[in-house]
């Protein structure tokens, strides 16, 4: 399940599952659909996510690229120390809010 919420011109996307393996395709499709509808400022809220693997990170980066190409942006929000560390170690700390 992926929750979607509008807030001050931004779209909050809140996946309800871990971003691992091919499961992340659902997240990618959701964000690409939003982009196609012109909702290109996305906040990816990882409050319900306990693990992201390299495929999950790959999808986040791919979505960010697509959104940027269309003049949008993607930021990740999370309080999870491990996930923050993962993004930092992959030199993606700049993507965190």
């Amino acid at each position, binding site marked *: 399940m992926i929750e979607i919420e509008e807030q001050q011109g931004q779209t909050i996307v809140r996946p309800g599952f871990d971003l691992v*393996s*091919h499961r992340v395709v659902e997240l990618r499709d959701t964000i690409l659909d939003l982009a196609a509808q012109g909702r290109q400022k996305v906040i990816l809220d990882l409050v319900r996510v*306990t693990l992201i*693997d*390299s495929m999950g990170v790959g999808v986040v*980066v791919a979505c960010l690229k697509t959104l940027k190409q269309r003049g949008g942006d993607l930021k990740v929000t999370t309080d999870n120390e*491990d996930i923050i560390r993962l993004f930092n170690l*992959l030199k993606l700390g700049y993507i965190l809010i």
Partner: protein
Amino acid sequence: MAKNNLEASCEPCENGFKCRFRSSEDGIDFVEERVQVWLSANRTGADAFSIRLIVREALTNAVFHGNRNDPAKEVFFTLEAEPHLLRIQVEDQGQGFNWRDKVLAPLEPTAKRGRGLTILQTFSRSARYNEKGNVLTVLIDAEGVQA
């Protein structure tokens, strides 16, 4: 997570356990779950996030790169506790690869792929292949293990 078609098995071994499964994504979930169960029953002091991540990356590479997702090929997984360490070994039935080059590939922050080996290296104490490249051994710090 009882998958109908999943051919996988698991058995205890000295200070840990072994699993084997036919190439499939469900096999990866199966092993990750066994690892979580084992971790909650054994106080290792190891970081559960790092272990789950390492297990997934190692198994994903074994299934998709090593065995090319061929269900005729199996993946063999072992987890063993040693003093202050966990040792994880993953073997696939693929051709191996030139890991010497691949582990030194640049980490490209904006690339879509190519983070698995970096994660294996940065979240572990050490991650090494056999010469051929089809057996990966990862050591993870685990203060709590007296073994």
